[in-house]
């Protein structure tokens, strides 16, 4: 596995420090991602078995302050409009914190359903942008809330089918290029709906395995650079397709570990970057840690690749699908 190890404690304090830099301009310019970022931070902590490192009460209060009562969904920040992505983040956070009863389920369900278009696609908000990511958000939300029966499955799957490409992958909209993150959202959606028969699993598995580059890292499309976040998009898809062993785990583990900020020069930093030498952020920290978990890296908690939530939680909700990650190693 190489000499490098995951600097768990450094990453935990990195995530704890993120909420404290609120006087930075950068913090305010990323307000449109705040709720997502809290989910990413919390999920990274769960994977590293330090779920309690952030204050539960504060998080729940913040989530609830993002509720957009006019729309019936959550915005990314208290005065931002509701959007389907932070709405999923809110529900994920509340479930992880064992506070799912805080939300107004009927209103969220009708908000989510209202975002489906006649083509079967989902918009992210009233502004109307469509993306298969939003389909995933919708289906994941409905599933977590136990309301999948309200979804028009035929229409939803029909749209995903139109986003499937000749190379076996999926794009973000009809006609768009295959991209590993879009493959994840489509495959995970189909997994939730028990419709993996919609994909040519060998062909797609091969396309995903082809994402691994000689340095061990994964890219998101052919002839693009490797990036730590694809560790999650590609590995979760492969886990759902039960083909995660088709990539070389050891070299990918080394790649992710080498992108740790603490491994660069200053051990104070913490967090994981998109690739070695770059600046860490919470987005790449969670997806790097999630990738390591799916690869069986020692002493991490199991992650459900379909929901990107703690595996035990998904199991306790009765939502676990038939996926396979690599077995947990011992140090």
């Amino acid at each position, binding site marked *: 596995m190489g000499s490098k190890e995951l600097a768990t404690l450094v990453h935990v304090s990195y995530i704890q420090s993120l*909420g*404290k830099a*609120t*006087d*930075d*301009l*950068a*913090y*305010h*310019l*990323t*307000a*449109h*991602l705040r709720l997502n970022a809290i989910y990413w931070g919390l999920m990274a902590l769960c994977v590293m078995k330090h779920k309690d490192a952030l204050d539960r*009460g*504060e998080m729940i*209060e*913040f989530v609830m*302050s*993002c509720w957009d009562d006019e729309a019936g969904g959550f915005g990314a*920040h*208290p*005065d*931002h*409009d509701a*959007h389907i992505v932070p709405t999923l983040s809110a529900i994920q956070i509340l479930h992880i914190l064992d506070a799912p009863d805080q939300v107004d389920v009927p209103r969220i369900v009708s908000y989510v359903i209202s975002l489906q278009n006649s083509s079967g696609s989902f918009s992210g*908000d009233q*502004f*109307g*942008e469509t993306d298969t990511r939003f389909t995933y958000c919708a289906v994941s939300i409905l599933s977590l809330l136990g309301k999948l029966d309200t979804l028009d499955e035929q229409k939803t799957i029909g749209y995903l089918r139109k986003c499937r*490409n*000749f*190379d076996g992958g999926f794009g*973000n*909209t009809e*006609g*768009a*290029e*295959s*991209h590993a993150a879009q493959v994840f959202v489509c495959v995970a959606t189909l997994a939730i709906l028990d419709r993996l028969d919609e994909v040519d699993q060998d062909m797609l*598995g*091969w396309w995903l*395995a*082809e994402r*691994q580059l*000689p340095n061990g890292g994964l890219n*998101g*499309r*052919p*002839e*693009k650079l490797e990036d730590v976040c*694809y560790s999650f998009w590609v590995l979760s898809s492969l886990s759902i397709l039960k083909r995660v062993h*088709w*990539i*070389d785990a050891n*070299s990918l583990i080394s790649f992710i570990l080498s992108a740790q900020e603490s491994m660069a020069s200053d051990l104070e930093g913490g967090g994981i970057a*998109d690739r070695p030498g770059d600046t860490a*952020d*919470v*987005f790449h920290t969670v997806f790097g840690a999630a990738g390591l978990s799916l690869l069986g890296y020692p002493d991490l908690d199991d992650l459900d690749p379909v929901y990107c939530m703690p595996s035990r939680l998904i199991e306790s909700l009765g939502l676990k699908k038939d996926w396979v990650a690599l077995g947990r190693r011992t140090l």
Partner: protein
Amino acid sequence: MQRLLVESLDTHQEYVPYGERPEWQDLTPIQQDEGSLAPLAPIMYGDEYKDSTNYFRAIVQKGEYSERVLEITEHIIRQNPSHYSVWQYRYDTLLAIKADLIAELELMDEIATTFLKTYQVWHHRRLLITHLRAPRPELMFIANALQADKKNYHTWAYRQWILAEFNEDELWDGELPFVEQMLSDDLRNNSAWHHRFFVVWESGVRAGEEDRETLVKREIAFTKTKIARAPNNASAWNYLRGVLERTSSPFSVLEAFVTPYAQPPSPEDESEWVSDDEASSTKSPTAKSSDLAETADDAVLDLENPIPSARAELPCPQAIEFLADIREQSAQNNGTTARSDIDEAIKLYASLATKYDTMRERYWEFRQREASKLIPAIA
């Protein structure tokens, strides 16, 4: 994917705080609600951003749709183009006050070029074009935007949307030359290969392309020349495979072409290897005949099957896989020599697993097992 990068804010020199502008005096700015994560220290972040978003909140609370909404939302977008609520309010305002959408589009020409990576920019454009119903100038705009960022996912998706949404012959007419230009700039641009598939195979049958067999031949010939130029280009091989599968063409039509790419270099050539294979192949059908005469030596010249250049990095795993697929198909179609075909396919997969693509060893082992399952079927 989504980056948390932040654009620098050095764009505005003549910024005057809204509180000092007479035309904004009627509003009381609303501070950002920090929820439970309120900072203990006083807010230090950029005054300009804070000021403009405070007044924006006041506008929203008032439910005002007016000319000055366009001013303040543009100001915020220039500081933070990912602020989706601001985009949404701007769009609602444009419609509510029946603003000149052509002027808006012109403004967006400039803003989109500055913030290419922000998807709100593209979605806003899409909404404007949906109203204006004027897609033709868009293709030129997109072509220019792609010059700045040749693989930008949202820019390409926007082009595909324009073509499919308006679906006019004049729009489609220029697409093939456009793709060829993009591929001649960078023949490894997967977005361009994808777009080629979209244009040729996913958008209906256009005039002059009714004869699908000729079309298949044209596409195969085109791809072969690109592979000859850069053999280790997954995008081109995937395209080739996609064409054959889409048209249910037998892989065997490519056997003569693929074979030299699947051969390891002979030992005496090995010292001449260079690291990459983008050497210009003087043996492509488009090359001048004098070049061909010089380099072809005693090899039999086959214009339909351009061979890799002497400096190409061989063998190509994709070519070996292709050859193995050809053997498998042949085994399924041909009872008498079937067993040797399967053995050959298994040998090819084994060479990938143990030598030429060891990173994906487990995948190639899987392919060996799958191939051996064909044995009882043909026995």
